[in-house]
């Protein structure tokens, strides 16, 4: 038994004490493999579900299939798993940013099952976010099992995300970049190596089980200067599509929560509408990978109008699916919408400039995908490398860079934060490493409180108070009620100097008359960032801390900044 206990604390092994990267690499590989299994499991389950529903898609009641799927998905998450559904990737970023990478064990599998029900029934969503959530939760819980510290746990959460993305797209580089760029928000050596190992482990697991396939392998493209020039226009179209999707997702969620029906009925209604739309535009259903295949291989025959309508429809069905209670991610829909946008743009170019020799429509489809991904996620590297790896098109790298960078910049103009981060920023929950907010969030009022103030009574004579001032090294004196101990006010020595030196007042003035009875105070559970802001705005150097109407101590700017420096050092020592 002691042996078992010993192995649960590998961080204490002498071998890993000087450099824990070796430990993180080993555990990271395990996390990557398990994330790979989760990813392959979801892919197989989805494939089985989609195949089993395929014969019924043409029947009149087929619109009820997504309705049933979304309803079961929301019921499963809310009633069976008690998850309190949110967007998977956002929850992972929240966990890394705010709670040291802690995630619930149930998250290892809950989103896999719910997203399988949503997407398998025809809901417009992607399997990537659920797999990311699952991988992150696997990493977090393995870290918990081995009693690793917060930094190591965050690295393993990153490993889980990298392994998952790497496995589902067979794209190890993308997995690694996604994890660093979107999930962790920092590029440090201490993270990169274990995450790279996990990413490779995830990809190898997928290759072992499914073979080394490239998701959307494309043929080589001959890119002319006209195509390069067209990249600028395509970036604009992709950026507008990503702004539209971001806003529509948000809008749909706001509309749906206002409808006074149970959550499962709301999900069913959303699913039914998606199903009905699917009769008119079948490409708008499911994760849509077969449509991407057709577009990249130049087998998509529809014209400009149909492609543009399909693009808009996919935005609507995705928003309905995810906004009304379905479970899944936006990666796959993003790729579909992006490729539709690319095709529509290519058709427009053909119409406007019929004499120009444009490259094949497959090129525009994959440039559209990169633009859309980069715009929505505001993560140009993830978008760029994802497209390169899933299509194997290294020859279009320059065009991809142009579209990704421009699309990110244009989207940023309309939507300053990415889809994943918007809620977190609005709630003040995005605390990226090394930022002012993050450092302050890790310091509590308890740590900076100064308790050496001498309390005085309200009916004390000025003469007696002066005697106390002589003994004290501080400028602040809290005034407390003798009976209850309640905080009544504070005396700031700087404000009462005229009285102190006037001996005529010594026997006539009492403390109550010279105290500030309504000072600005800080409460025990206040955020230090708010306290510091208050101090800055009102030019205070110290403020009293109150709890349960009693004076606890003072918090001063000098102590706070000392502690801030210590915390900053502790948080950034590993960044090489």
């Amino acid at each position, binding site marked *: 038994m002691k042996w078992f206990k010993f192995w649960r604390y590998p961080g204490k092994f002498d071998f890993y004490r000087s450099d824990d990267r070796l430990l993180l690499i080993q555990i990271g590989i395990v996390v990557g493999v398990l994330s790979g299994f989760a990813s392959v499991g979801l892919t197989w389950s989805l494939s089985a579900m989609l195949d089993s529903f395929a014969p019924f898609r043409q029947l009149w009641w087929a619109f009820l299939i997504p309705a049933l799927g979304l309803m079961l998905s929301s019921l499963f998450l809310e009633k069976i798993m*008690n998850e*309190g559904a949110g967007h998977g990737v956002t929850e992972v970023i929240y966990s890394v940013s705010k*709670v040291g990478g*802690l995630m*619930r064990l149930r998250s290892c599998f809950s989103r896999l099952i719910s997203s399988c029900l949503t997407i398998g029934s025809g809901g417009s969503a992607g399997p990537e976010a659920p797999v990311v959530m699952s991988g992150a939760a696997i990493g977090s819980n393995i870290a918990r099992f081995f009693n690793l510290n917060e930094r190591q746990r965050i690295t393993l959460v990153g490993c889980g995300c990298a392994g998952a993305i790497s496995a589902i797209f067979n794209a190890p580089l993308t997995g690694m970049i996604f994890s660093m760029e979107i999930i962790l928000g920092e590029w440090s050596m201490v993270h990169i190596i274990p995450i790279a190992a996990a990413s490779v482990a995830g990809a190898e697991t997928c290759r072992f089980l499914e073979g080394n396939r490239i998701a959307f392998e494309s043929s080589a493209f001959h890119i002319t200067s006209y195509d390069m020039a067209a990249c600028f226009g395509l970036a604009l179209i992709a950026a507008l599509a990503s702004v539209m999707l971001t806003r529509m997702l948000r809008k749909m969620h706001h509309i749906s929560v206002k409808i006074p029906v149970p959550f499962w009925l709301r999900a069913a209604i959303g699913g039914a509408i998606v199903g009905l739309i699917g009769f008119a535009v079948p490409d708008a259903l499911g994760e849509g990978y077969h449509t991407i295949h057709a577009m990249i291989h130049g087998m998509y025959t529809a014209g400009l109008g149909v492609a543009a309508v399909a693009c808009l429809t996919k935005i609507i069905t995705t928003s309905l699916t995810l906004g009304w209670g379905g479970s899944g991610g936006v990666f796959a829909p993003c790729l579909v919408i992006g490729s539709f946008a690319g095709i529509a743009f290519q058709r427009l170019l053909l119409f406007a400039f019929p004499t120009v020799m444009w490259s094949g429509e497959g090129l525009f489809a994959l440039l559209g995908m990169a633009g859309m991904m980069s715009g929505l996620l505001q993560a140009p590297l993830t978008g760029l490398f994802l497209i390169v790896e899933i299509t194997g098109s290294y020859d279009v790298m320059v065009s991809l860079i142009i579209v990704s960078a421009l699309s990110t910049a244009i989207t940023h103009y309309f939507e300053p934060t990415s889809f994943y981060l918007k809620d977190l920023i609005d709630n003040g*929950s995005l605390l990226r490493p090394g930022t002012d907010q993050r450092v302050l969030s890790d310091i*509590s009022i308890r740590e900076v409180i100064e308790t050496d103030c001498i309390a005085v009574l309200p009916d004390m004579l000025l003469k007696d108070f002066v005697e106390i001032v002589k003994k004290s090294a501080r400028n602040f004196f809290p005034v407390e009620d003798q009976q209850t101990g309640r905080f009544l006010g504070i005396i700031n020595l700087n404000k009462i100097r005229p009285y102190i030196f006037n001996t005529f007042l010594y026997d006539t003035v009492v403390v109550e008359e010279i105290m500030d009875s309504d000072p600005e105070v800080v409460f*025990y*559970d206040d955020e230090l960032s708010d306290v510091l802001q208050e101090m800055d705005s009102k030019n205070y150097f110290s403020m009293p801390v109150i709890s349960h109407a009693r004076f606890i101590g003072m918090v001063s700017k000098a102590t706070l900044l000392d502690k801030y420096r210590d915390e900053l050092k502790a948080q950034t020592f590993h960044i090489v």
Partner: protein
Amino acid sequence: MIKTLLHVFRNTPKGREVLLQSLYFCKLTGVSIVIYIPEHPKFLMYFDNDAVQVDLDKTYLADPATAKQHAEDLAEKAGVFPKFIKPKNFTASTLPDIPVHFDFMCCPRIIASLSAKISPGHIGPKVRRIINTATFPVLMPVPQFKEWKSLVVFFGGSGIDVKELKLALSLKRATGFPLYIFTQAEKTPKDYFEDVLAKSGLDGEIKKNVKKWYFFSKGKFKHNLYNIPHDALCILGAYDKEFVKDLIWGSTVELVQKTLPNTLLIAGPHYIIPPG
């Protein structure tokens, strides 16, 4: 430094009894009460190395309009100044995060939607998990408010037992109530326990503050529990053993809570004695 107790308030007659117990504890020990009135059927507590999700019984959401007033009235009658917390952070829109920087937490034996499925003699899995993870002890009151007038600490000679002895001594100082020690020694001689006390530097304080040491080397633990005063607050350490041992031999704390109708104060393996 002010010590605080977290209480999750249930606005029902049963919840009132539990709050009365918390208020009584706070009044006697000088601890301040922080009350959370749930607005969602679940909440998360992020401890140092674990995230515990508590899925509440539906009754915790009963009559939210009167909940705060009821809690304030009870606190006022008890002469305790309450503070109400509202969650600032949410893991998901319906899943608030409750802070964990308290010195005590009051938990009824069961605080979960599965209460109907758990027999009354058991500690619910969520409460067990909180005890296992928290750095603060958990006050586990009896279902009906009952004043306690003495303190009994269960001492088995382990590391957690020394910590709980220190906790008991601090409560003894705060309340002035008589303190008893209960030891089920089996075959271990008393010298061993006295040695542990001496090594931890508590022997002098124990001699000065402990009224009686119930030391049993014979008889069944369950039967010897009869000696514990009916109006005592029992302080005990929990889950210090390996999970597998607990599974095979049963947990002492589960046996105590099943047998004794007393309010318990349980310190888990991660309990940290607060400074001051």
